[in-house]
């Protein structure tokens, strides 16, 4: 399996009044043509990891890494202008809430079209054809009508599908999805995930799926990194998640209430300060 993305010893630092705050501390992993899940609680550094790969950390925040390479090519040394070409065209990102990611005063179709024309020099007509095909690919039944709609006229699930269409239209090699379904209802969640899954598989892309939901990630990904306090504490094949060894992962799994196994009191995660100091596991 060829390596699409290699990350070695990634740090994200923010200077604060009380010293330097390390949001991500020495994370290493590689990504092939697979679905890699990054799981953690809020503040674990999982979203920061995703943003750091695209070098989207704004100053005064700093990104440091021994290696950050896309198909063997270094990303750390690139200028902001060169990074702009990478973003979207080679690595794209889907955020949590489509309401904030779509431009509210621009029609949906035009936004998808623009996303394509930003990276490929084609005529408007051709771009529109491509956009319509993309809308169909994300299972939108009436693309002609949706094409002319404004973002506020579409539902959350459809908005997220539109975002996926927009992010996939330049044919990126890697997609980073940061909590793509947490703003959606359960019944819509599965549908959006299925669409994303199919497209990623068909195109031979690499997917980084960032989520707080262990079960969702284990059902959807091939491999899972579990992050705690800016480090990777454990890495597992997704189907072996329930055999996790690390007490943090076990604690997270056990703290969920379950429909099929009622209990009087839920198990509470006891945080061990040692977890934050341990070496990061590379995945």
């Amino acid at each position, binding site marked *: 399996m060829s390596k699409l993305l290699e990350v070695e010893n990634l740090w994200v630092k923010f200077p604060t009044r009380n010293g*330097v705050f390390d949001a991500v501390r020495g994370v290493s992993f590689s990504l092939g043509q697979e679905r890699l899940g990054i799981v953690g609680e809020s503040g674990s550094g999982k979203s920061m990891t995703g943003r750091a790969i695209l070098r989207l950390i704004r100053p005064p925040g700093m990104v440091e890494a021994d290696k950050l390479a896309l198909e063997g090519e270094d990303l750390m040394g690139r200028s902001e202008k060169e990074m702009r070409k990478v973003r979207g065209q080679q690595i794209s990102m889907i955020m949590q809430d489509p309401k904030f990611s779509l431009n509210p005063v621009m029609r949906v179709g035009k936004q998808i079209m623009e996303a394509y024309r930003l990276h490929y020099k084609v005529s408007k007509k051709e771009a529109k054809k491509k956009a319509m095909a993309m809308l169909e690919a994300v299972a939108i039944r009436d693309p002609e009508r949706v094409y002319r709609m404004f973002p506020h006229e579409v539902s959350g699930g459809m908005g997220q599908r539109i975002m996926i269409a927009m992010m996939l239209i330049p044919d990126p090699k890697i997609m980073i999805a940061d909590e793509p379904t947490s703003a959606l209802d359960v019944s819509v969640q599965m549908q959006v995930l299925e669409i994303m899954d199919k497209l990623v598989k068909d195109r031979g892309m690499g997917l980084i799926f960032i989520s707080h939901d262990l079960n969702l990630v284990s059902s959807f990904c091939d491999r899972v990194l579990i992050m705690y306090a800016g480090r990777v504490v454990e890495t597992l094949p997704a189907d072996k998640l329930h055999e996790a060894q690390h007490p943090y992962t076990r604690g997270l799994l056990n703290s969920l209430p379950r429909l099929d196994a009622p209990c009087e009191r839920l198990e509470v995660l006891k945080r061990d300060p040692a977890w934050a100091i341990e070496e990061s596991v590379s995945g």
Partner: protein
Amino acid sequence: MSLSDTPKAGLRAWLLTDTPTSRRHARAASLYQAWLSLKGNHMAMLGLGILIFLVVIAALASVLAPSDPFIQDLSLRLTPPIWQADRDPGIEGYILGSDSLGRDILSRLLYGSRITLYIVTLVALMAPIVGLLVGTIAGYTGGWIDIILMRITDIFLAFPRLILALAFVATLGAGIENAVLAISLTAWPPYARIARAETLTIRNSDYIHAVRLQGAGPMRIITKHIWPLCISSLVVRVTLDMAGIILAAAGLGFLGLGAQPPSPEWGAMISEGRKFILDHWWVATMPGLAIFTVSLAFNLLGDGLRDVLDPKDGSQ
């Protein structure tokens, strides 16, 4: 989750703590943290420095001023500033020159700072408070009270500011107090609008619902829960508006409707200097520079305060 520890002095650590131990400690700590973020903004500190300098000057005007601002010496009228004195040698004592009646411009500027501060303080006390009251009551109660209060605000807003102030001064009589009153009466509507807009967003937040569910009445909610959140944005707006208020006072003075001669009000000084502006530039320029500096200082400080106080960016 790791903050690398840096050694801190006792008081500083006490003020920077995340675990305050008493009411006073908590308040002191949050004030100190706001001060730290303001201190980080160099332009704001420059503005604050200029304003502190202005207060010191006003307090010590009688000591600092080289001569009495009202003493005329017609034989020494329109003396140029000291660095141009070589054209007209032999005259000492007028550092910034003298005006058409031979009065020392520097002394007049120093005494004039008192008037400027007086105007600024009075307006800052009146306009925002009226605005806050009207805006929060209108915003929180809604309905016909809102409609009436806001239409009154609209009426005031529709008048050109200086013209309305002119009308007030014309009916009340010229003079510095009436000028302040006139400026305040024309300055409050924007504050009412801001306060109302803020109130409308705060009104429907969960923390206001929560206190309503404790049985709190509207007066308590407005004064204890809504005001603290509106005040910070009003302080910012007032600071930014101060420049305009000084200019309006100067404008009234310039038109002869504010401070009356021989009062060394800066606007009135420019007005007097206007007649000589081509031949004796300093008479109008010096007070102009003073107004410019103080207005700029207020603007810089206001910008910095916005970064510190604006609840939208939050202190998180």
